[in-house]
């Protein structure tokens, strides 16, 4: 029996905790430190923090804030947002993060993933892949918070990031984010079949059954944002977590 990793994803913009829907309309939902403290008490096994501030690429990771967040967390944490150099990656690991998620950097900084995994080990390097339907109807990878399309076949691109050294793939379906419509099971199945590394499904989780379905489709872990920061039906802000663990 294996315990399934269920990873809450916290989005931050300009130091505040926010939540988007389909990568748009960032809404203020509170203070990231407060959220981490709540997750500590709920026994969360892994947490992801992603900075979606507009200036993240020019300023790089906000180390002052991130060091504070890492000091608050009583669980391993992943960070993504504006990582473009090996030095930034090293500084994040030293400050208490265990995994680095590279998204825009996959395309903008060729060789970064290889450098990071050579230095830190591939298990610390995540290829964070955002995708949605392109205008021709096929699925395509996007960077810059869904703003820039990456040329090429999605699955081929993902295989490439793993070949470069990514030890885990976050498969983030843009069109499902915060919609509670369930994960993109088809894509999870397609990708996990051909990859030698763990695939984490993101986007669309509304209930435990959605997570179970993603695992059945081949995901080795699942992540969710809205489900853990909102209470439905009116999306009132309420930090929560699963009441029981999922085993497979």
């Amino acid at each position, binding site marked *: 029996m294996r*315990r399934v990793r269920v990873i809450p994803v916290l989005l931050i913009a300009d130091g505040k905790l926010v939540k988007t829907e389909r990568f748009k309309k960032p809404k203020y939902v509170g203070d990231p430190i407060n959220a981490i403290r709540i997750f*500590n008490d709920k*026994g*969360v*096994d892994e947490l992801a923090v992603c900075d979606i501030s507009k200036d993240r690429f020019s300023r790089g990771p906000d180390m002052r804030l991130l*060091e*504070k967040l*890492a*000091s*608050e*967390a*009583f*669980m*391993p944490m992943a960070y993504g947002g504006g990582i473009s150099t090996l030095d930034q990656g090293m500084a994040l690991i*030293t*400050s*208490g993060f*265990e995994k680095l998620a590279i998204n825009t950097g996959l395309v903008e900084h060729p060789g970064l993933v290889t450098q990071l995994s050579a230095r830190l*080990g*591939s*298990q*610390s390097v995540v290829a964070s892949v955002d995708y949605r339907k392109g205008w021709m109807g096929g699925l395509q990878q996007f960077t810059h918070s869904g703003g820039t399309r990456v040329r090429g076949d999605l699955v081929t691109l993902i295989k490439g990031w793993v070949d470069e050294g990514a*030890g885990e793939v976050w498969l983030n379906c843009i069109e499902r984010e915060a919609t509670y419509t369930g994960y993109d099971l088809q894509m999870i199945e397609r990708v996990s079949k051909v990859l030698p590394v763990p695939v984490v499904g993101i986007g669309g989780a509304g209930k435990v059954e959605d997570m179970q379905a993603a695992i059945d489709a081949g995901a080795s872990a699942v992540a969710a944002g809205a489900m853990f920061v909102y209470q439905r039906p009116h999306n009132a802000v309420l930090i929560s977590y699963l009441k029981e663990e999922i085993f497979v």
Partner: protein
Amino acid sequence: MTVAIINYGVGNVGSLVNMLERKCGAQCEIFEGGGILNEGITHCILPGVGHFGFAAEELRKSGLHSQLKSFLETGGQLLGICLGAQLLLESSEEGDADGLGFISGHVKKFHEGHLSQGECIPHMGWSDVQLVGRKSDMKGDNSMRFYFVHSYHMVPQDRNDVFMTADFAGGFTAAVKRGNVTGVQFHPEKSHAFGIAFLKSWLSES
């Protein structure tokens, strides 16, 4: 109770301090060498991430080695975490520098040949841990799990020094204990409820 945390420039000790102070009822004092360990201190933690050889050199240069030795002689409880635990042994395959030698034995790299399917080095993630050969008052003994990140593991010479084991690469020593010296390969400060329970148990030892 005040806990001294040795900071010799390896990694962020923020979450360790916060866990001890907020969840375990302890006060923390960051100790950076130079001075002497406070007389009232009964518990001391040696954290650490990074390279064994480098860290061992740092400890020797800053005089912390001899300070820790006299701390132990006066009956203080010492806890090494991750690299800090490995440093309690005599030597490591990672670098030529001598360890502190408070526990006999060596630190070895995981052997590729011992990995099961799906396992890779470094060992990173949560693992269930078994207590060895002693009764413990830790809560939830049956389902203890901790968070690990490491490529090297402790191999104590005396099997009686093995405190906990975990299943990875055919099984390895997850914690050592000999008298007032304890070393854990995992990160209690990243293992939420399990880490808190472990630190509380350790703090209750005297």
